[in-house]
């Protein structure tokens, strides 16, 4: 059952130079799927994420999340929709500096006016799972990048959203922390059957996913599914990337592409 449906979405930025960021893009995300969206810089990845997170509205086409059409909602309902259905993980964590780690995690629930006992229960559960217990009372500027991103993931999970959106979650992390965070995401995906859409241009990050969707200049380019071994999956991702032309591997074949 698809939890997220993207149907013929086009996004045009009007301005002095009209710019078509997304063009006729369609795909579905199933419940419990861990999807990576890859593409070179300027391919419209972030625009796509903004469209899904209802920060931005598509010019044409329809986005359906969990049978809800955000385009039909008014501003107030949209805010409530984001609060209840979506969870966000950002590249630069975006933890609020004046709140402690614990407070940052419960923030979505406090906004929704949930009882304190429920919040404490969920925090305890998540803190154990994500190994946050040791620094729950610290401020965001007193913890490391990996810890900060784990906190951000906990914040994205605490209200048990339908869909988790991650924008380059490993972009600011070193390789160790990256691996930790990615493994965490994939465990959550498996254990909690959470649906995750992750935008990245790191092929290593993408190799943790079930499926990788490639877009180029706002259009669908290719998609590949993971196989048994991460190593070969990684290799295949690299191959597509080199085909894309904006890839990390210098491949002469890309030159011949129009």
């Amino acid at each position, binding site marked *: 059952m698809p939890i997220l449906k993207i149907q013929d979405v086009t996004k045009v930025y009007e301005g002095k130079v009209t710019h078509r960021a997304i063009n006729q893009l369609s795909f579905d995300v199933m419940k419990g799927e861990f999807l990576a969206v890859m593409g070179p810089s300027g391919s419209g990845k972030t625009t796509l994420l903004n469209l899904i*997170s209802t*920060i931005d509205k598509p010019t044409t086409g329809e986005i359906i999340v969990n049978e809800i059409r955000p385009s039909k909602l008014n*501003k*107030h309902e949209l805010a409530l929709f*984001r609060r209840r259905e979506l969870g966000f993980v*950002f590249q630069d964590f975006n933890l609020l*500096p004046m709140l402690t780690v614990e*407070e940052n995690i419960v923030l979505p629930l*406090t906004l929704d006016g949930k009882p*304190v006992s429920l919040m404490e229960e969920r925090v305890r559960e998540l803190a154990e799972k994500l190994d946050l217990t040791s620094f729950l009372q610290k401020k965001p500027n007193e913890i490391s990048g990996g810890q900060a991103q784990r906190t951000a993931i906990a914040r994205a999970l605490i209200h048990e959203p339908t869909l988790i959106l991650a924008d380059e979650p490993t972009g600011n992390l070193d390789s160790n922390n990256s691996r930790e965070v990615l493994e965490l995401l994939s465990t959550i995906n498996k254990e909690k059957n959470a649906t995750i859409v992750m935008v990245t241009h790191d092929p290593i990050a993408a190799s943790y996913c079930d499926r990788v969707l490639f877009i180029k200049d706002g259009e669908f380019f290719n998609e590949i599914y993971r196989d048994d071994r991460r190593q070969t999956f990684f290799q295949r991702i690299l191959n597509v990337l080199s085909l894309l032309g904006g890839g990390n591997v210098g491949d002469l074949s890309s030159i011949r592409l129009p």
Partner: protein
Amino acid sequence: MFHPEIENGFLGNVSIVGMIIAEIILVLFSWFFIFYSVKAFLEARSKEFAILLHLGMERKQLSKLIFLETLLLGTVSIVVGILFGYAFSRFFFMIVREILILEELPLYFSWEPFLLTITVYLSAFILISILSVYVTPEKNLIDLFKGYSEVNGNHQYSIPRAIIGMVCIAIGYILALLTSRMTMYSFGIAVIILITIGTYLFFSDTTHFILDRIRSKKHLYWKKYRMLSVAEQSMIMKSNSKMFFVVTMVTALAFLCVGLLATLSSYTSQYDKMNPLGLIYKGHTDNPYEYSHITSIMRELEEKGLSYHMASLEVRKQTSSYTRYEVEVFSESDINNLLFSYGYPFVRLEQGEGMFIPYSEESINQLNDINVETVLIENNVNITIDKVYPKVIFPSSIISLNSIIVSDEDFRLLKNPYHGASSDVEPGYHLFAFDIPQWIETKDVGLSIAYRVSQEYLKEEYRLPFYFENAGLNFSFLLSTYSLFTLVGLLVAAVFLLAAGSFIYFKLHTSLELEKKKFDVLKRMGLTDQELKRLINAYLVPQFFIPLGVALLHSLFAFVALQNLLKHIANISIVKELVLAFVFLVIIEVIYFYLIRWRYITHVRDS
């Protein structure tokens, strides 16, 4: 200040000195203010400077750039300010004229004020631009790129200090309440020191202590946006406690200014009550000028078209057996003649009865309790005095403290003149009281007589056989001096108040980028528009109104103390004026708050 009419006019030196002091305060404060604002804006632009430095600009060139920019801005603002100022000076003169009740204050042109303004502010801008370049510490490029960040305040509070802060303020308040005339100076200084220290500690420690208490109570704290706003407040308090302290003190100062002025104005407005008569001419019984003076005054009044009622009273001095001192005796019919023009109730006295004449509002109650049986020694007349006239008839400068009314029959018996301790004391006097409904307009009447009286006052001994008092003239002196203070004080207070608000605005401006980012995150997380507004309210309201509230409380106690003092000195109540003034100030502040909130919301929504 340079206006020729004011400088040469009758406004005493006092008001000129007052104006100069106010001007110096204003200039100093505006210097400080400009410095602060320039610094705040430079801080907000640090990213831009970082790019310039990154592109290979020398530090010297950057300094030159900032210097030139500030100078350019300064020049433009000075020119515009002077133009506006000159345009509004006509309006300003109108207000001054209205307050001072001057005939006219022509618009004039002289180069002095312009030169003064230009030199003062141009030098300020030059100095400030140099300072702001050199005082700013050499930051690393990387720090500049990151821009202004608030996340450096890891301020620790201590509970003892938090408690000391509260105790200081409490003791200060109690002392202020206990202040009497005796302890005015010592207590006053102690109160000021205590309150200053207390306020500082209040913002640096006590508020954190309280907020921390709230944060530890999850049931209170983890509720909707309350968590965010409380955490935010503690953050703001931590990084800006010094600013809050300054703002509070400045606001308190502004309140004190305005409150003091309100007090003065209440003094002038109650002048009417204390001086019921328009003109009073007092002369010895054998005063040779009496006829000519009275006729000239009457002629002048008629020329002005002022209606008046003149009562001439004969006063005889006698010695009272009760006190052994002199007593001034009025006759019943003379007094009734005067009371008729006031519209006050008449006096009815039987033979042998007497009545006190009160010299002030307060004395009415005091004299009411006194019951005296006395003999006027010179003529052996027995008088029983057990009443007091319930209203003030004469200003205290005219009659002595011992003045009584007796019946006409008794008054006729007082044939033998007073023989006091020395022979040169006059045995009585004639009093000509002019009751004039439009008494404010009499200030030009009898000027020559008033002049002679005031000249005589400067000499060692008062030898003139007459004395003249013109309530209108006195009032216009009083009014012009005090209203000038009022005007200047209001200006100072307005500048202070706006400045206090602006400090907060600058602080908001510099941290705007950070705030925008925060609201962006929250919006993504799903924050409704309503909640956003509420959050901004919860963010801005304490910043504006905590300093205001504390300042209000401070000045409230200051004025309770002042009221206590004034009760001893002059019998005036300042409550009504104070409440009015404070309500006015609070309204201004609320309007200012909404203005800034509106700007802030548009800024945040833009992102």
